[in-house]
Protein backbone atom coordinates (compact mmCIF):
# COMPACT_ATOMS: atom_id res chain seq x y z
CA UNK A 1 0.00 0.00 0.00
CA UNK A 2 1.20 3.49 -0.82
CA UNK A 3 1.16 5.69 2.26
CA UNK A 4 2.20 8.78 0.39
CA UNK A 5 2.07 9.50 -3.29
CA UNK A 6 2.94 12.88 -4.76
CA UNK A 7 2.39 13.62 -8.42
CA UNK A 8 3.99 16.62 -10.12
CA UNK A 9 3.89 18.56 -6.88
CA UNK A 10 5.07 22.12 -7.43
CA UNK A 11 5.43 25.10 -5.14
CA UNK A 12 6.31 28.46 -6.57
CA UNK A 13 6.81 31.47 -4.32
CA UNK A 14 5.96 34.58 -6.26
CA UNK A 15 8.48 37.37 -6.32
CA UNK A 16 7.68 41.06 -6.75
CA UNK A 17 10.28 41.15 -9.50
CA UNK A 18 9.14 39.85 -12.86
CA UNK A 19 10.62 36.52 -13.85
CA UNK A 20 12.30 35.83 -10.51
CA UNK A 21 9.69 33.56 -8.93
CA UNK A 22 11.21 30.92 -6.70
CA UNK A 23 10.41 27.31 -7.50
CA UNK A 24 10.90 25.64 -4.13
CA UNK A 25 9.53 22.31 -5.33
CA UNK A 26 9.41 21.53 -9.04
CA UNK A 27 7.12 18.83 -10.50
CA UNK A 28 8.10 16.34 -7.85
CA UNK A 29 6.73 12.83 -8.12
CA UNK A 30 7.45 10.20 -5.50
CA UNK A 31 5.89 7.34 -3.60
CA UNK A 32 6.47 6.03 -0.10
CA UNK A 33 5.34 2.51 0.71
CA UNK A 34 3.81 1.34 3.98
CA UNK A 35 6.24 0.36 6.72
CA UNK A 36 9.30 1.79 5.01
CA UNK A 37 11.76 4.39 6.18
CA UNK A 38 12.16 6.96 3.45
CA UNK A 39 14.95 9.52 3.47
CA UNK A 40 14.81 12.78 1.59
CA UNK A 41 18.28 14.17 0.96
CA UNK A 42 19.29 17.58 -0.19
CA UNK A 43 21.32 20.59 0.79
CA UNK A 44 20.07 23.63 2.61
CA UNK A 45 17.34 25.27 0.55
CA UNK A 46 16.87 22.21 -1.66
CA UNK A 47 13.14 22.12 -0.89
CA UNK A 48 13.02 19.30 1.69
CA UNK A 49 11.10 21.21 4.36
CA UNK A 50 8.84 22.80 1.74
CA UNK A 51 7.90 19.33 0.51
CA UNK A 52 6.94 18.17 4.03
CA UNK A 53 4.95 21.36 4.62
CA UNK A 54 3.12 20.80 1.32
CA UNK A 55 2.22 17.27 2.32
CA UNK A 56 1.01 18.44 5.73
CA UNK A 57 -0.99 21.27 4.09
CA UNK A 58 0.91 23.87 6.10
CA UNK A 59 1.54 25.46 2.72
CA UNK A 60 -0.55 25.06 -0.42
CA UNK A 61 0.83 23.58 -3.66
CA UNK A 62 0.91 25.76 -6.76
CA UNK A 63 0.10 22.68 -8.82
CA UNK A 64 0.16 18.92 -8.60
CA UNK A 65 -1.59 16.50 -6.30
CA UNK A 66 -0.78 14.15 -3.46
CA UNK A 67 -2.51 11.38 -1.59
CA UNK A 68 -2.06 10.10 1.95
CA UNK A 69 -3.17 6.57 2.74
CA UNK A 70 -4.64 6.55 -0.79
CA UNK A 71 -7.01 9.43 0.09
CA UNK A 72 -6.84 13.04 -1.15
CA UNK A 73 -4.00 14.50 0.90
CA UNK A 74 -5.65 17.79 1.85
CA UNK A 75 -8.23 16.12 4.12
CA UNK A 76 -7.32 17.41 7.57
CA UNK A 77 -8.80 14.39 9.39
CA UNK A 78 -6.04 12.24 7.85
CA UNK A 79 -3.55 14.13 9.99
CA UNK A 80 -4.75 12.10 12.97
CA UNK A 81 -2.64 9.31 11.41
CA UNK A 82 0.39 11.54 10.97
CA UNK A 83 3.09 12.70 13.36
CA UNK A 84 5.40 15.61 12.63
CA UNK A 85 8.63 16.83 14.13
CA UNK A 86 9.44 20.18 12.52
CA UNK A 87 12.98 21.40 12.04
CA UNK A 88 12.82 24.78 13.77
CA UNK A 89 10.29 24.01 16.43
CA UNK A 90 9.58 26.11 19.46
CA UNK A 91 7.82 24.34 22.27
CA UNK A 92 5.74 26.88 24.22
CA UNK A 93 8.18 27.57 27.09
CA UNK A 94 5.45 28.17 29.67
CA UNK A 95 4.28 24.54 29.49
CA UNK A 96 5.63 21.58 31.43
CA UNK A 97 6.53 18.44 29.47
CA UNK A 98 3.29 16.82 30.62
CA UNK A 99 1.15 19.85 29.72
CA UNK A 100 2.77 20.10 26.30
CA UNK A 101 1.95 16.48 25.54
CA UNK A 102 -1.53 16.94 26.98
CA UNK A 103 -2.40 19.87 24.71
CA UNK A 104 -0.77 18.51 21.59
CA UNK A 105 -2.08 15.01 22.29
CA UNK A 106 -5.61 16.38 22.70
CA UNK A 107 -5.28 18.25 19.42
CA UNK A 108 -4.09 14.99 17.82
CA UNK A 109 -7.41 13.45 18.75
CA UNK A 110 -6.42 11.15 21.63
CA UNK A 111 -9.36 10.02 23.70
CA UNK A 112 -9.29 12.05 26.97
CA UNK A 113 -9.78 8.81 28.93
CA UNK A 114 -6.42 7.49 27.74
CA UNK A 115 -4.39 10.64 27.42
CA UNK A 116 -2.75 10.51 30.85
CA UNK A 117 -1.59 6.93 30.28
CA UNK A 118 -0.33 7.82 26.82
CA UNK A 119 1.62 10.77 28.21
CA UNK A 120 3.38 8.58 30.78
CA UNK A 121 4.14 5.90 28.19
CA UNK A 122 5.50 8.35 25.66
CA UNK A 123 7.58 10.29 28.18
CA UNK A 124 9.13 7.02 29.28
CA UNK A 125 9.77 6.06 25.64
CA UNK A 126 11.79 9.23 25.04
CA UNK A 127 13.48 9.09 28.46
CA UNK A 128 11.85 12.16 29.98
CA UNK A 129 9.74 10.59 32.73
CA UNK A 130 11.71 12.33 35.46
CA UNK A 131 11.28 15.72 33.79
CA UNK A 132 7.51 15.40 33.33
CA UNK A 133 6.64 18.34 35.61
CA UNK A 134 9.50 20.61 34.62
CA UNK A 135 8.91 23.69 32.47
CA UNK A 136 10.11 23.29 28.89
CA UNK A 137 12.17 26.48 29.17
CA UNK A 138 14.55 24.60 31.52
CA UNK A 139 15.16 21.83 28.95
CA UNK A 140 18.34 21.40 26.93
CA UNK A 141 18.11 21.32 23.12
CA UNK A 142 18.35 17.52 23.14
CA UNK A 143 15.57 17.19 25.71
CA UNK A 144 13.35 19.56 23.73
CA UNK A 145 14.02 17.53 20.61
CA UNK A 146 13.02 14.32 22.39
CA UNK A 147 9.90 15.97 23.79
CA UNK A 148 8.97 17.19 20.35
CA UNK A 149 9.52 13.68 19.04
CA UNK A 150 7.16 12.49 21.79
CA UNK A 151 4.38 14.82 20.56
CA UNK A 152 4.94 13.44 17.06
CA UNK A 153 4.29 9.85 18.18
CA UNK A 154 1.98 10.15 21.20
CA UNK A 155 -1.13 9.43 19.14
CA UNK A 156 0.39 6.31 17.60
CA UNK A 157 0.51 7.65 14.02
CA UNK A 158 1.04 5.44 10.98
CA UNK A 159 3.21 7.96 9.14
CA UNK A 160 5.81 10.12 10.87
CA UNK A 161 7.57 13.09 9.27
CA UNK A 162 10.86 14.01 10.87
CA UNK A 163 12.62 17.12 9.68
CA UNK A 164 16.28 17.02 10.70
CA UNK A 165 15.56 15.09 13.92
CA UNK A 166 19.19 15.00 15.07
CA UNK A 167 20.13 18.54 14.13
CA UNK A 168 22.14 20.18 16.91
CA UNK A 169 22.15 17.04 19.05
CA UNK A 170 25.31 15.56 20.56
CA UNK A 171 26.48 12.09 19.43
CA UNK A 172 24.93 10.28 22.41
CA UNK A 173 21.60 12.04 21.86
CA UNK A 174 21.80 11.20 18.16
CA UNK A 175 22.29 7.54 18.93
CA UNK A 176 19.28 7.60 21.26
CA UNK A 177 17.09 9.20 18.62
CA UNK A 178 18.36 6.77 15.99
CA UNK A 179 17.55 3.81 18.25
CA UNK A 180 14.11 5.27 18.84
CA UNK A 181 13.52 5.56 15.10
CA UNK A 182 14.67 1.97 14.57
CA UNK A 183 12.20 0.91 17.26
CA UNK A 184 9.43 2.76 15.37
CA UNK A 185 10.59 1.06 12.18
CA UNK A 186 10.33 -2.34 13.89
CA UNK A 187 6.78 -1.45 14.92
CA UNK A 188 5.98 -1.12 11.21
CA UNK A 189 5.62 2.67 11.16
CA UNK A 190 6.28 4.53 7.95
CA UNK A 191 8.92 7.19 8.51
CA UNK A 192 9.69 10.11 6.22
CA UNK A 193 13.05 11.49 7.24
CA UNK A 194 14.58 14.75 6.07
CA UNK A 195 18.24 14.92 6.86
CA UNK A 196 21.56 16.03 5.56
CA UNK A 197 23.43 13.69 7.92
CA UNK A 198 23.91 11.01 5.29
CA UNK A 199 25.59 8.40 7.46
CA UNK A 200 22.50 8.42 9.63
CA UNK A 201 20.15 8.12 6.68
CA UNK A 202 22.16 5.18 5.41
CA UNK A 203 21.79 3.42 8.77
CA UNK A 204 18.04 3.88 9.06
CA UNK A 205 16.46 4.32 5.64
CA UNK A 206 15.22 1.67 3.23
CA UNK A 207 14.90 4.06 0.33
CA UNK A 208 15.95 7.60 -0.43
CA UNK A 209 15.36 10.42 -2.85
CA UNK A 210 17.77 13.24 -3.58
CA UNK A 211 16.43 16.66 -4.43
CA UNK A 212 18.35 19.63 -5.67
CA UNK A 213 16.78 23.07 -6.09
CA UNK A 214 13.33 21.53 -5.78
CA UNK A 215 13.90 18.90 -8.46
CA UNK A 216 14.02 15.19 -7.73
CA UNK A 217 17.32 13.99 -9.19
CA UNK A 218 17.58 10.43 -7.93
CA UNK A 219 15.54 7.91 -5.99
CA UNK A 220 15.74 4.26 -5.15
CA UNK A 221 16.48 1.68 -2.50
CA UNK A 222 19.54 2.46 -0.40
CA UNK A 223 20.88 -1.02 -1.12
CA UNK A 224 20.52 -0.49 -4.88
CA UNK A 225 21.94 3.01 -4.91
CA UNK A 226 24.99 2.17 -2.85
CA UNK A 227 25.78 -1.07 -4.66
CA UNK A 228 28.42 -0.56 -7.30
CA UNK A 229 27.58 -3.14 -9.94
CA UNK A 230 30.76 -2.79 -11.96
CA UNK A 231 33.11 -3.52 -9.06
CA UNK A 232 33.14 -6.76 -7.12
CA UNK A 233 35.16 -8.22 -4.31
CA UNK A 234 35.82 -11.96 -4.39
CA UNK A 235 36.80 -13.42 -1.04
CA UNK A 236 38.62 -16.74 -1.22
CA UNK A 237 39.86 -19.36 1.21
CA UNK A 238 43.33 -19.36 -0.33
CA UNK A 239 46.45 -17.29 -0.11
CA UNK A 240 46.41 -16.10 -3.69
CA UNK A 241 50.16 -15.46 -3.73
CA UNK A 242 50.68 -19.22 -3.48
CA UNK A 243 48.59 -20.10 -6.53
CA UNK A 244 49.16 -19.06 -10.12
CA UNK A 245 47.41 -15.80 -9.55
CA UNK A 246 49.06 -13.70 -12.18
CA UNK A 247 48.39 -16.41 -14.76
CA UNK A 248 44.63 -16.63 -14.52
CA UNK A 249 44.11 -12.99 -13.59
CA UNK A 250 46.17 -11.46 -16.34
CA UNK A 251 43.21 -10.88 -18.66
CA UNK A 252 41.16 -9.13 -15.97
CA UNK A 253 41.23 -5.74 -14.32
CA UNK A 254 41.91 -7.07 -10.84
CA UNK A 255 43.74 -5.98 -7.70
CA UNK A 256 44.92 -8.36 -4.98
CA UNK A 257 43.78 -7.34 -1.53
CA UNK A 258 44.65 -8.84 1.88
CA UNK A 259 46.37 -11.74 -0.01
CA UNK A 260 43.08 -13.69 -0.21
CA UNK A 261 40.74 -11.24 -1.92
CA UNK A 262 40.46 -10.03 -5.47
CA UNK A 263 38.84 -6.75 -6.43
CA UNK A 264 37.46 -6.81 -9.95
CA UNK A 265 37.14 -3.28 -11.29
CA UNK A 266 34.97 -1.77 -14.01
CA UNK A 267 33.77 -5.06 -15.39
CA UNK A 268 30.60 -6.55 -16.78
CA UNK A 269 28.87 -9.50 -15.16
CA UNK A 270 30.09 -11.74 -18.00
CA UNK A 271 33.66 -10.95 -17.12
CA UNK A 272 33.03 -11.72 -13.47
CA UNK A 273 31.70 -15.13 -14.43
CA UNK A 274 34.73 -15.85 -16.62
CA UNK A 275 37.02 -14.93 -13.74
CA UNK A 276 35.11 -17.25 -11.41
CA UNK A 277 35.49 -20.07 -13.97
CA UNK A 278 39.26 -19.44 -14.13
CA UNK A 279 39.55 -19.42 -10.35
CA UNK A 280 37.59 -22.63 -9.99
CA UNK A 281 39.87 -24.26 -12.57
CA UNK A 282 42.74 -23.41 -10.20
CA UNK A 283 40.77 -25.04 -7.34
CA UNK A 284 40.54 -21.72 -5.54
CA UNK A 285 37.85 -21.85 -2.85
CA UNK A 286 35.44 -18.92 -3.34
CA UNK A 287 33.86 -17.87 -0.06
CA UNK A 288 31.94 -14.76 -1.06
CA UNK A 289 31.30 -12.51 -4.04
CA UNK A 290 29.75 -9.12 -3.45
CA UNK A 291 29.45 -5.84 -5.26
CA UNK A 292 31.53 -3.08 -3.69
CA UNK A 293 29.27 -0.60 -1.92
CA UNK A 294 29.64 3.11 -2.15
CA UNK A 295 28.59 5.29 0.74
CA UNK A 296 25.43 7.33 0.43
CA UNK A 297 27.59 10.40 0.74
CA UNK A 298 29.54 9.42 -2.39
CA UNK A 299 26.29 8.77 -4.25
CA UNK A 300 24.87 12.07 -3.08
CA UNK A 301 27.89 14.12 -4.09
CA UNK A 302 28.20 12.35 -7.45
CA UNK A 303 24.50 12.82 -8.16
CA UNK A 304 24.53 16.49 -7.31
CA UNK A 305 27.68 16.98 -9.36
CA UNK A 306 26.10 15.26 -12.38
CA UNK A 307 22.91 17.28 -11.92
CA UNK A 308 24.75 20.60 -11.76
CA UNK A 309 26.89 19.55 -14.74
CA UNK A 310 23.81 18.69 -16.78
CA UNK A 311 22.30 22.09 -16.02
CA UNK A 312 25.44 23.92 -17.12
Amino acid at each position, binding site marked *: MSVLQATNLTKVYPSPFKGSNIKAVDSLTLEVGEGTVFGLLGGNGAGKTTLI*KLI*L*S*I*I*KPTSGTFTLFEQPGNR*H*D*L*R*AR*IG*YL*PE*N*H*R*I*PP*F*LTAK*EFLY*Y*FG*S*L*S*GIDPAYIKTKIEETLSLVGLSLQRDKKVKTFSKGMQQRL*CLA*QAVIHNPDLI*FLDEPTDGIDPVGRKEIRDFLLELKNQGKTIFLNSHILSEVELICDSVAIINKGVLVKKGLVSDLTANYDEYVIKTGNDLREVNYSGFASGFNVILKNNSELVLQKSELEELNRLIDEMRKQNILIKEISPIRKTLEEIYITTLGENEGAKN
Partner: protein
Amino acid sequence: MKNIANVIKYSIREALSSKILISYLALSLLIVVVVLIAVAIKGPLSYIDENIPPEILETEKTSIINIIFAVVAGFLSFFTSFLAIFPVAGFVPGINDKGSLDMLLSKPVGRSEFLTGRYLGGLLIVGVNFAFVITAVWLIISVSTSIWNPSFLYIIPFNLLSFAALYALMFPLGLITGSNLTGILTYFILLIIVNPLLLIGHSAEKFTGVLKTVISAFYYVLPKTAELGSTALDSALKGDPFSQFLPLITTLAFTVLVFLYGIFIFEKKDF
Protein backbone atom coordinates in the same frame (compact mmCIF):
# COMPACT_ATOMS: atom_id res chain seq x y z
CA MET B 1 -16.48 21.41 18.79
CA LYS B 2 -13.97 19.21 20.65
CA ASN B 3 -11.14 20.70 18.62
CA ILE B 4 -12.33 24.25 19.25
CA ALA B 5 -12.60 23.49 22.98
CA ASN B 6 -9.02 22.13 22.97
CA VAL B 7 -7.72 25.24 21.21
CA ILE B 8 -9.60 27.45 23.72
CA LYS B 9 -8.02 25.55 26.63
CA TYR B 10 -4.58 25.88 25.04
CA SER B 11 -5.10 29.61 24.45
CA ILE B 12 -6.18 30.20 28.04
CA ARG B 13 -3.16 28.28 29.33
CA GLU B 14 -0.95 30.37 27.06
CA ALA B 15 -2.52 33.61 28.33
CA LEU B 16 -2.22 32.55 31.97
CA SER B 17 1.52 32.17 31.55
CA SER B 18 1.85 35.75 30.40
CA LYS B 19 2.68 38.62 32.72
CA ILE B 20 0.40 40.87 30.65
CA LEU B 21 -2.68 38.88 31.64
CA ILE B 22 -1.63 38.82 35.28
CA SER B 23 -1.18 42.63 35.20
CA TYR B 24 -4.55 43.04 33.46
CA LEU B 25 -6.30 40.91 36.10
CA ALA B 26 -4.46 42.74 38.88
CA LEU B 27 -5.60 46.13 37.53
CA SER B 28 -9.17 44.88 37.31
CA LEU B 29 -8.99 43.65 40.88
CA LEU B 30 -7.56 47.02 41.89
CA ILE B 31 -10.63 48.81 40.48
CA VAL B 32 -12.89 46.58 42.55
CA VAL B 33 -10.78 47.17 45.66
CA VAL B 34 -10.75 50.97 45.10
CA VAL B 35 -14.55 51.04 44.73
CA LEU B 36 -14.88 48.85 47.82
CA ILE B 37 -12.61 51.14 49.86
CA ALA B 38 -14.39 54.27 48.59
CA VAL B 39 -17.73 52.85 49.63
CA ALA B 40 -16.39 51.64 52.98
CA ILE B 41 -14.86 55.01 53.85
CA LYS B 42 -17.78 57.15 52.75
CA GLY B 43 -20.68 55.42 51.08
CA PRO B 44 -22.51 57.08 48.16
CA LEU B 45 -25.60 57.51 50.32
CA SER B 46 -23.82 59.59 52.96
CA TYR B 47 -22.32 61.74 50.17
CA ILE B 48 -25.78 62.28 48.70
CA ASP B 49 -27.26 63.00 52.15
CA GLU B 50 -24.65 65.67 52.81
CA ASN B 51 -24.72 67.38 49.42
CA ILE B 52 -28.24 67.07 48.04
CA PRO B 53 -31.08 69.16 49.52
CA PRO B 54 -33.56 66.92 51.37
CA GLU B 55 -36.54 68.05 49.27
CA ILE B 56 -34.79 66.89 46.07
CA LEU B 57 -33.46 63.75 47.68
CA GLU B 58 -36.96 62.78 48.75
CA THR B 59 -38.21 62.37 45.18
CA GLU B 60 -35.05 61.84 43.12
CA LYS B 61 -32.99 59.48 45.25
CA THR B 62 -33.18 56.55 42.83
CA SER B 63 -32.44 58.77 39.84
CA ILE B 64 -29.44 60.28 41.58
CA ILE B 65 -28.05 56.87 42.43
CA ASN B 66 -28.65 55.75 38.86
CA ILE B 67 -26.54 58.69 37.73
CA ILE B 68 -23.78 57.36 39.97
CA PHE B 69 -24.29 53.97 38.35
CA ALA B 70 -24.02 55.58 34.91
CA VAL B 71 -20.83 57.46 35.75
CA VAL B 72 -19.24 54.31 37.12
CA ALA B 73 -20.53 52.37 34.11
CA GLY B 74 -18.92 54.86 31.73
CA PHE B 75 -15.61 54.64 33.53
CA LEU B 76 -15.67 50.85 33.71
CA SER B 77 -16.72 50.51 30.09
CA PHE B 78 -13.85 52.62 28.87
CA PHE B 79 -11.22 51.29 31.26
CA THR B 80 -11.93 47.60 30.75
CA SER B 81 -12.20 47.96 26.96
CA PHE B 82 -9.03 50.01 26.81
CA LEU B 83 -6.99 47.36 28.58
CA ALA B 84 -8.71 44.26 27.23
CA ILE B 85 -6.75 44.03 24.01
CA PHE B 86 -3.32 43.59 25.58
CA PRO B 87 -3.54 40.07 27.08
CA VAL B 88 -5.14 38.52 23.99
CA ALA B 89 -3.57 40.41 21.09
CA GLY B 90 -0.99 37.65 20.62
CA PHE B 91 -3.63 35.01 19.97
CA VAL B 92 -3.66 35.85 16.28
CA PRO B 93 -1.91 32.82 14.71
CA GLY B 94 1.59 33.31 13.46
CA ILE B 95 2.38 36.24 15.75
CA ASN B 96 3.41 34.76 19.09
CA ASP B 97 3.47 31.12 18.07
CA LYS B 98 6.11 31.09 15.34
CA GLY B 99 7.82 27.70 15.61
CA SER B 100 4.89 25.99 17.27
CA LEU B 101 2.41 26.90 14.54
CA ASP B 102 3.81 24.22 12.21
CA MET B 103 3.15 21.62 14.89
CA LEU B 104 -0.34 22.96 15.56
CA LEU B 105 -1.27 23.08 11.89
CA SER B 106 -0.07 19.50 11.39
CA LYS B 107 -2.73 18.30 13.85
CA PRO B 108 -6.14 17.08 12.67
CA VAL B 109 -7.70 20.43 13.43
CA GLY B 110 -9.24 22.50 10.65
CA ARG B 111 -7.79 25.96 10.24
CA SER B 112 -11.22 27.52 10.77
CA GLU B 113 -11.58 25.54 14.02
CA PHE B 114 -8.14 26.67 15.11
CA LEU B 115 -8.85 30.34 14.41
CA THR B 116 -12.27 30.15 16.05
CA GLY B 117 -10.72 28.54 19.13
CA ARG B 118 -8.13 31.32 19.38
CA TYR B 119 -10.78 34.01 18.93
CA LEU B 120 -13.20 32.49 21.43
CA GLY B 121 -10.35 31.90 23.89
CA GLY B 122 -9.58 35.64 23.75
CA LEU B 123 -13.25 36.57 24.13
CA LEU B 124 -13.64 34.19 27.06
CA ILE B 125 -10.71 35.70 28.97
CA VAL B 126 -11.89 39.26 28.37
CA GLY B 127 -15.56 38.39 28.96
CA VAL B 128 -14.86 36.72 32.30
CA ASN B 129 -12.87 39.74 33.38
CA PHE B 130 -15.62 42.17 32.27
CA ALA B 131 -18.18 40.08 34.12
CA PHE B 132 -16.06 39.93 37.27
CA VAL B 133 -15.25 43.66 37.47
CA ILE B 134 -18.68 44.96 36.51
CA THR B 135 -20.63 42.50 38.66
CA ALA B 136 -18.37 43.15 41.65
CA VAL B 137 -18.72 46.94 41.33
CA TRP B 138 -22.49 46.63 40.84
CA LEU B 139 -22.78 44.45 43.97
CA ILE B 140 -20.71 46.89 46.04
CA ILE B 141 -22.78 49.94 45.00
CA SER B 142 -26.09 48.10 45.25
CA VAL B 143 -25.40 46.67 48.70
CA SER B 144 -24.19 50.02 50.01
CA THR B 145 -27.16 52.01 48.62
CA SER B 146 -29.83 49.30 48.84
CA ILE B 147 -30.85 50.36 45.35
CA TRP B 148 -30.48 47.56 42.86
CA ASN B 149 -30.19 48.53 39.25
CA PRO B 150 -29.73 45.29 37.25
CA SER B 151 -29.64 47.23 33.99
CA PHE B 152 -26.14 48.24 35.03
CA LEU B 153 -25.10 44.68 34.14
CA TYR B 154 -26.01 45.29 30.49
CA ILE B 155 -22.58 46.89 30.23
CA ILE B 156 -21.12 43.36 30.19
CA PRO B 157 -22.67 42.14 26.91
CA PHE B 158 -22.49 45.58 25.27
CA ASN B 159 -18.86 45.99 26.16
CA LEU B 160 -18.08 42.46 25.09
CA LEU B 161 -19.78 42.99 21.74
CA SER B 162 -17.74 46.15 21.14
CA PHE B 163 -14.61 44.26 22.06
CA ALA B 164 -15.61 41.23 19.93
CA ALA B 165 -16.02 43.46 16.87
CA LEU B 166 -12.67 45.20 17.21
CA TYR B 167 -10.89 42.00 18.24
CA ALA B 168 -12.29 40.22 15.17
CA LEU B 169 -10.68 42.91 13.04
CA MET B 170 -7.29 42.13 14.58
CA PHE B 171 -7.28 38.65 13.03
CA PRO B 172 -7.24 39.61 9.33
CA LEU B 173 -4.97 42.57 10.13
CA GLY B 174 -2.54 40.38 12.08
CA LEU B 175 -2.56 37.67 9.43
CA ILE B 176 -1.91 40.16 6.62
CA THR B 177 0.81 42.17 8.36
CA GLY B 178 2.30 39.38 10.53
CA SER B 179 2.36 41.76 13.47
CA ASN B 180 -0.12 42.63 16.18
CA LEU B 181 0.99 46.26 16.32
CA THR B 182 -1.25 47.28 13.40
CA GLY B 183 -4.16 45.50 15.04
CA ILE B 184 -3.61 47.14 18.43
CA LEU B 185 -3.28 50.60 16.86
CA THR B 186 -6.42 50.08 14.78
CA TYR B 187 -8.25 48.89 17.89
CA PHE B 188 -7.42 52.09 19.78
CA ILE B 189 -7.97 54.41 16.83
CA LEU B 190 -11.43 52.98 16.23
CA LEU B 191 -12.34 52.76 19.91
CA ILE B 192 -11.15 56.16 21.01
CA ILE B 193 -11.14 58.39 17.94
CA VAL B 194 -12.96 57.19 14.84
CA ASN B 195 -16.11 55.65 16.27
CA PRO B 196 -16.96 58.51 18.67
CA LEU B 197 -16.31 61.04 15.86
CA LEU B 198 -18.47 59.07 13.44
CA LEU B 199 -21.27 58.99 15.99
CA ILE B 200 -21.07 62.77 16.41
CA GLY B 201 -20.63 63.38 12.69
CA HIS B 202 -23.52 61.13 11.72
CA SER B 203 -25.97 62.94 13.98
CA ALA B 204 -24.61 66.46 13.37
CA GLU B 205 -26.71 68.52 10.97
CA LYS B 206 -23.95 70.77 9.78
CA PHE B 207 -22.45 68.05 7.55
CA THR B 208 -24.16 67.78 4.16
CA GLY B 209 -23.56 66.43 0.68
CA VAL B 210 -20.60 64.14 -0.09
CA LEU B 211 -19.07 64.58 3.36
CA LYS B 212 -22.29 63.48 5.01
CA THR B 213 -22.48 60.45 2.69
CA VAL B 214 -18.88 59.46 3.47
CA ILE B 215 -19.42 59.85 7.21
CA SER B 216 -22.65 57.87 7.02
CA ALA B 217 -20.99 55.13 4.94
CA PHE B 218 -18.23 54.69 7.53
CA TYR B 219 -20.76 54.98 10.31
CA TYR B 220 -22.84 52.11 8.93
CA VAL B 221 -19.90 49.91 7.94
CA LEU B 222 -17.77 50.17 11.08
CA PRO B 223 -18.80 48.64 14.40
CA LYS B 224 -20.72 51.11 16.54
CA THR B 225 -18.67 50.83 19.69
CA ALA B 226 -19.39 54.43 20.73
CA GLU B 227 -23.10 53.93 20.30
CA LEU B 228 -23.02 50.64 22.17
CA GLY B 229 -21.22 52.45 24.97
CA SER B 230 -23.84 55.18 25.13
CA THR B 231 -26.61 52.54 25.02
CA ALA B 232 -24.93 50.85 27.99
CA LEU B 233 -24.95 54.19 29.86
CA ASP B 234 -28.61 54.68 28.94
CA SER B 235 -29.34 51.25 30.30
CA ALA B 236 -27.60 52.10 33.55
CA LEU B 237 -29.67 55.27 33.76
CA LYS B 238 -33.06 54.12 32.52
CA GLY B 239 -33.01 50.38 32.46
CA ASP B 240 -33.85 50.11 28.75
CA PRO B 241 -30.98 48.47 26.90
CA PHE B 242 -32.75 47.76 23.62
CA SER B 243 -33.83 51.24 22.67
CA GLN B 244 -31.79 50.97 19.47
CA PHE B 245 -31.30 47.76 17.56
CA LEU B 246 -29.22 49.16 14.70
CA PRO B 247 -25.92 49.40 16.61
CA LEU B 248 -26.36 45.85 17.85
CA ILE B 249 -27.21 44.38 14.46
CA THR B 250 -24.57 46.24 12.44
CA THR B 251 -21.85 45.57 15.02
CA LEU B 252 -22.74 41.89 15.09
CA ALA B 253 -22.75 41.75 11.28
CA PHE B 254 -19.36 43.52 11.16
CA THR B 255 -17.93 41.04 13.70
CA VAL B 256 -19.11 37.99 11.78
CA LEU B 257 -18.05 39.26 8.36
CA VAL B 258 -14.62 40.43 9.48
CA PHE B 259 -13.95 37.21 11.35
CA LEU B 260 -15.04 35.15 8.33
CA TYR B 261 -12.63 37.20 6.25
CA GLY B 262 -9.92 36.34 8.81
CA ILE B 263 -10.74 32.65 8.35
CA PHE B 264 -10.58 33.07 4.57
CA ILE B 265 -7.08 34.58 4.81
CA PHE B 266 -5.93 31.96 7.33
CA GLU B 267 -7.16 29.11 5.13
CA LYS B 268 -5.16 30.45 2.19
CA LYS B 269 -2.02 31.50 4.02
CA ASP B 270 1.28 29.60 3.79
CA PHE B 271 3.27 29.30 7.00
